[in-house]
């Protein structure tokens, strides 16, 4: 292990490691603000920073395709969906004092304990493991596409069925008035109360169709 450490420069981090560390600090800080801020919309916007930081980390790990998929799906559609959800549930603009529940200290205790245990285990287990980032990129679009459509075609198709099921499920869930008639058909003209339901059904589904591409 000492030889491996000596050959890789244990205390002299490379440029990639420094960049990874800095972006990781930004990501972690944004994540902490996401789960602690009392302004709900700000939480969603800080989530954009955290997810974008993870995309940069993918780039530093030479997984380009995953990085751009992350930007497209997470930053592009999931956060927009969450913002739609916040607006449709009439989230208060500004500070809401009841954003955290009463068991936050227990939650903090659990999170700190699990972080301590996991960091200890992970650092101890991978003390002498180095990622070799030289050579051809591991996750360029060509490599990812080849492996996806040669070895992973069947799971890929199964995933499309799953997305279809989620699409149908979201439509069924957000349809309004299905329970009013015994044959399960929605009653048309249910008044102004149907408006949020209609908006909700277009929100998740269109974005998911976008993510399916």
């Amino acid at each position, binding site marked *: 292990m000492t030889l491996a450490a000596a050959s*890789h420069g244990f205390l002299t981090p490379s440029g990639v490691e420094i960049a990874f*560390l800095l972006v990781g600090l930004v*990501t972690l800080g944004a994540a*902490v603000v*996401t*789960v602690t801020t009392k302004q*709900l919309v700000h939480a*969603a916007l800080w989530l954009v920073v955290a*997810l974008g930081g*993870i995309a940069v*980390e993918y780039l530093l790990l030479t*997984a380009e*395709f*995953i990085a751009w*998929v*992350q930007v497209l*799906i997470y930053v592009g*559609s*999931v956060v927009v*969906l*969450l913002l*739609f959800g*916040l607006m*449709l*549930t*009439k*989230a208060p603009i500004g500070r809401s004092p*009841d954003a*955290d529940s*009463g068991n*936050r200290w227990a*939650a903090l205790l*659990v999170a*700190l304990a699990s*972080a301590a245990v996991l*960091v200890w285990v*992970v*650092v101890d287990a*991978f*003390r002498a*493991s*180095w*990622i070799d980032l030289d050579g051809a990129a*591991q*996750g360029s679009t060509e490599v990812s596409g080849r*492996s996806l459509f040669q*070895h992973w075609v069947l*799971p890929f198709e199964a*995933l499309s069925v799953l997305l279809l099921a*989620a*699409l149908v499920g979201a439509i069924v*869930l957000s349809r*309004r008035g299905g329970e*009013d008639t015994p044959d399960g058909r929605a009653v048309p003209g249910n008044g102004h109360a149907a408006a*949020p339901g209609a908006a*909700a*059904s277009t*929100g*998740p589904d269109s*974005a998911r169709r976008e993510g399916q591409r």
Partner: protein
Amino acid sequence: MHLAYPAVLAVLLFCVGLYGVLARRNAILVLMSVELMLNAVNLNLVAFDVWLRDTLHAGQALTLFTIAVAAAEIGIGLAIVLLVYRNRGSSDVDKLTDLAERPAGDGADEPPHHPSDQQAEAAA
């Protein structure tokens, strides 16, 4: 690059998400924290895929699948949250206690009714 950097970052992100899931009251903030946990797992998958130089690229394929499943999950989850909000007038997970066990003899014949719950029943 030392493997500990991505692994420790993933661990810390996961624990931040864990804190969010346990401590947040709004259901949509809970969903955001779940997204953070899923992203930590994705980072781990990509890091180990690059470390092992897998010829099948199982880690990256699984990451793509996780991202797609997370997109489906967030769609269904938001639909459920909106349904709960429509029926109950609130998306606080602390108030959804209809299935909670109560102490014996306490409100067995008067179930706790939300005012908006009654409105929903009247409208139905």
